[in-house]
């Protein structure tokens, strides 16, 4: 068993109005591991991602990252260490800024790099890392395809040297052929940088092709968690079986 990178224990979130989004959730992601989180709309999977990344600060329960407790008041290194990639690359990038401006701004805020030239160099490295041509640094996301935009969003998340990525349905808005390239990129980031990931999706086939373990969430509770092979070959919970039966597949 690998060293624990992220550990959540007894996480609960209740929204104003009494809606319980998470109920006593335990989840662990090892160093260099990709864990899939699957469930239907409203199951709480995005809420769990937002708690982990620090965007949802009213919760109860304990969060630990790299053997340190994470509190709602995170230190700058803690905030950099856990980054997020959102579902819709059309909505998550400011259309008025070039890719260089989008990433440079972040590096300045988080005091990454020693000057403009060094940051430019880092940006070019990031573009290579996400398999985009360096020339795109000076274009705006609006002139790019959905797949290219999602690569920019990933480059931006990587700019602050994170150790952990929460990806919330990062391919749901993309074509199947573009999706394949993005899935491969997440696999490569783990391979090349040892980046641990929580990969949130309602698409079981995508999760199967990428993740080491899978957690199934239903109505705010993790109902099953197991290695990917076991989830698909021998699902234990009824809800997991229902999800599998509903998933379309090629003959």
């Amino acid at each position, binding site marked *: 068993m690998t060293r624990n990178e992220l550990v959540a224990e007894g996480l609960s979130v209740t929204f104003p109005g009494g809606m319980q989004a998470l109920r006593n959730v335990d989840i662990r992601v090892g160093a260099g591991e990709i864990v899939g989180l699957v469930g*239907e709309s409203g199951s709480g999977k995005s809420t769990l991602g937002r708690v982990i990344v620090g965007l949802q600060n009213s919760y109860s329960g304990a969060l630990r990252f790299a053997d340190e407790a994470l509190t709602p008041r995170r230190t700058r290194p803690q905030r950099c260490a856990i980054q997020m990639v959102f579902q819709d690359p059309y909505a998550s990038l400011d259309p008025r800024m070039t890719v260089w401006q989008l990433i440079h701004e972040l590096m300045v805020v988080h005091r990454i790099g020693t000057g403009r030239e060094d940051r430019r160099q880092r940006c070019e490295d990031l573009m290579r890392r996400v398999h985009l041509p360096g020339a795109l640094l000076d274009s705006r996301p609006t002139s790019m395809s959905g797949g290219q935009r999602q690569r920019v969003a990933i480059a931006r998340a990587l700019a602050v040297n994170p150790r952990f990525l929460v990806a919330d349905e990062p391919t749901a808005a993309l074509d199947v*052929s573009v999706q394949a390239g993005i899935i*491969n990129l997440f696999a490569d980031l783990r391979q090349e940088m040892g980046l641990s990931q929580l990969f949130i999706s309602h698409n079981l*086939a995508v999760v199967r*092709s990428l993740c080491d373990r899978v957690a199934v969430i239903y109505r705010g509770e993790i109902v099953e968690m197991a290695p990917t092979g076991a989830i698909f070959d021998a699902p234990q919970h009824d809800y997991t079986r229902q*999800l599998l039966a509903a998933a379309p597949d090629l*003959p």
Partner: protein
Amino acid sequence: MQQAIKADALQIEGLSVAAQIGEKSYKALDGVTLSVARGEARGLVGESGSGKSLTLRAVMGLLPANLTVTAGAIRFDGRDLLGDGGKLLHEVRGTGISMVFQEPAVALNPVMKVGRQIVDGVAWRRGLSGRQAKELAVELLAQVGIKDPARWVDAYPHQLSGGMRQRVMIASAIASKPDVILCDEPTTALDVTIQAQILALFKALKTDLGAGLLYVTHDLSVVAEFCDSLTVMYAGRTVEQSDDLGALIASPAHPYTRSLLAAVPRIRGPIRRLRGLSSSAPSLTERDQKPAPALVACGPGRQVAPFTAEDERFFARDEEV
């Protein structure tokens, strides 16, 4: 023509559509050819921008103002929908051919009760009374699997879940018992579980109504669930099609189809690295302006677009940018 073996309800032949951008004209569709028989479900797959949705819009006469049909024929029961100054199309649209859109939240009128939206057209055509129309709406809602339809008939679209809204849209598409239903990615916005229910509904409708379905999606695994036949489009052209979907998926003839299949993640079988096509299809302005070569037969009920060794290398290339 004596060779018509099955009676195709919808035939699209050599359909070309030009897009006028400024002074120049570009080929948005180039020689698209396919047919749908009653009781047949044909999948129409391709990437964004391949022209699959545009093909449906051309059939419905819903092309944007800067797009025009430049060549080809669209026939409904053998009659040309493009001729006749659009009179036949007007007669057939909504009765013989209907359409289900991707986003029911956008396609439905937010200030009209769902029951009335479903039967508005039919009630007017058949001269139904208010009470008869409502009874028909309840019946249709039941047919698309909405429980307690009498309660929902007076609801507004915002009161319904995404899956129910899509059922309402399907109800309005089948209200006139059409021969052909055009479906434009109707489950893309839905969850897996709801998607499975809607696909099961389409399957049932195909049998119960005997309608032909032309089902557009970018997801091959969705059409593999319930379609009989398959047409693959790339950059405004038909690249391959088969009357037998299983045969095409088992042995794709065109290199583009092969790479599209290799991009699909699987629920069963060995896990392998997916084929990512990160540089996508040529955009409208970069497309080959020569006319598309005619499809050639490559097996019973199968056709493929001719391709060169260079095409083969192009589609087989590994992901790069």
